């Protein structure tokens, strides 16, 4: 089902994607039939608790993990059907930024070489051209190329390492970037710097982003639309403002209630959530949220709720959505 307005052109269209992991003789149902679209020039935020399958979905979109079934259409072409050279060509257009900036940089290589690496892999042979590109992107992320290019990762703070990772992801001029928890490991003061930088880069380079995080306020700060995941399935997707103002899925409502607000006049809601997420090895039948949902009844365990439009542009997968 198309979740975008008619005027929006989907750059990415994920259709009924299923991704599983084998674990001994068991199966981890990490992503179980997720469909979503990202319009050209838009940022789609993806939120959900640890282990709900956000990174798996992001990696499957980029074909770093192959899906069991379903399709990933990028600019109209099905990435899941691509192999070899065709896939390699396509990969230049899509990039990934990780959560742990320090661990994702090779400690023995100089910053200039780290940022140039994608260019080498992509076959850019001209060293002067590579150097020009590296300087351009390092400058764009707010680092002085002459000062940093010759240094090693350990000489930089977490925030600076994330700037370097962002520079590396931009060097091939991609159209689409999956940002997997890019600020979760950073301090509050540095986090704001990096979020602002991502917004700036998006405007400057005309990027489309899939922005993964577990912090709802962080996601809202940068996203046009937000998708909420729970235990491998999509619960709700819709325009950011609307979704936060009027959540339709009980799980979205619960997430919003649980956020600690930096205002002493807002009393924290007493234990909103009961219990913890079940294991993705044996997910509950019917609605996967039913073991923690205050509204659950017979129908919820018998029947998987389909994603339905509950308000213009807002879709929820629930038999009894919040009014």
């Amino acid at each position, binding site marked *: 089902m198309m979740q975008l307005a008619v005027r929006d052109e989907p750059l990415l269209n994920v259709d009924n994607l299923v991704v599983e992991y084998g674990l001994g003789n068991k199966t981890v149902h990490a992503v179980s039939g997720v469909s979503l679209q990202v319009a050209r020039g838009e940022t789609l935020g993806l939120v959900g*608790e*640890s282990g709900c399958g956000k990174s798996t979905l992001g990696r499957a979109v980029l074909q770093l993990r192959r899906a069991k079934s379903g399709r990933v259409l990028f600019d109209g072409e099905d990435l899941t059907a691509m192999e070899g050279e065709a896939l390699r060509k396509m990969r230049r257009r899509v990039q990934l930024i990780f959560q742990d900036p320090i661990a994702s940089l090779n400690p023995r290589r100089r910053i200039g070489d780290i940022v140039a690496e994608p260019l080498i892999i992509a076959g850019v042979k001209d060293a002067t051209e590579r150097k020009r590109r590296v300087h351009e992107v390092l400058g764009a992320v707010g680092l002085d190329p002459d000062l940093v290019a010759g240094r090693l990762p350990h000489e930089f*703070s977490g*925030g600076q390492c994330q700037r370097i990772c962002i520079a590396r992801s931009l060097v091939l001029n991609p159209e689409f970037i999956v940002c997997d928890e890019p600020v979760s490991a950073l*301090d*509050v*003061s*540095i*986090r*704001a*710097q990096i*979020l*602002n930088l991502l*917004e700036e880069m998006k405007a400057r380079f005309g990027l489309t982003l899939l922005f993964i995080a*577990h*912090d*709802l*306020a*962080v996601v*809202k*700060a*940068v*996203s*046009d639309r937000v998708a909420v995941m729970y235990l491998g399935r999509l619960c709700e997707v819709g325009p*950011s*403002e609307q979704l*936060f103002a009027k959540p339709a899925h009980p799980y979205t409502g*619960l*997430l*919003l*209630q*649980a*956020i*600690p*607000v*930096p*205002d*002493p*006049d*807002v*009393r*924290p*809601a*007493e*234990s*909103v*959530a009961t*219990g*913890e997420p079940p294991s993705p090895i044996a997910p509950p039948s019917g609605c996967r949220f039913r073991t923690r949902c205050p509204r659950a009844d017979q129908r919820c365990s018998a029947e998987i709720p389909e994603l339905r439009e509950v308000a213009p542009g807002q879709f929820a997968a629930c038999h009894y959505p919040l009014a």
Partner: protein
Amino acid sequence: MSAPLLTIEDVAVELPTPRGNLRAVDHVDLSLEAGRTLGIVGESGCGKTMLSRAVLQLLPKKAKLTGRVMFDGEDLVRLDAERLRHLRGRDLAVVFQDPMTSLNPVLTIGTQLMETIQEHLELDAPAARKRSIELLAAVGIPAPEQRLAQYPHQCSGGMRQRIAIAIALSCEPKLLIADEPTTALDVTIQAQILDLLAREQRRRHMAMIIITHDLGVVAGRADEVAVMYAGRVVERAPTQALFKRMHMPYTEALLAAIPKLETAPHTPLPAISGRPPDPTRPLKGCSFAPRCRYAAGRCHEAKPELKGAEMPGHLYACFHPIQMAEEVGA
């Protein structure tokens, strides 16, 4: 006002490093009464953990500690190891960010709980077992009897933190120090754990220190907040007063930099430029000066002392405080 249960007096912690001496805690004074909750907030590396370890007398061996830590009439800094061990785990308890720091991976949950209880409360095995089950139930563990036979790795992160809390509470401590108890957990679980801590704290009239980098965590749950920056307490106030009328530019900047749910998407965040100073290279002036938008004159030359504002109990360390009475009135 009753006498404080805990008084931290002029505590400083220095650590020798290859780059030189690192001043992790820089002359901190704090106090806390029974039944009250103190929140300590600040960015990574500002000295929160070192300060709490100074209270618990659990500093790295090479660390140099000066000052006094008065707890229930005794100076912990000068106590012998035997007496300290007795206090820790009984009157003084701690919960860390990573519950595996306090749990032993090779012992069952039951063994760990019962050992602590038997050692400190002189109960026999059946009574200790009964008490363990009650405690696990109190911290919200379903089927507590079955849990006793399990090992920590068989539990989720949230469960493990509940178990660590149960062990910390098992001997009715007078003071509980929770160092980022929920940072590693999801928001829904985080809310459950914070509720649990608040409930047990009220019920037991226990004093509690919550350490966090999230102003949101302390806003609704601490009576008083101390903001730390570069090893020092730079502002301290009753929670309401701090959020209503902060005087320290750093506190203001820290609060402003947090993304808020009520803000429209794509609103640029008021970020704090730069990063905290290198703790092995102390600055001559105010440690926040290189990042402070109000910095001028003396700020680069001298260290502002912590001094009292118009509200009793509100202290700040700044030469050009914001939101002072005359400004607010004007």
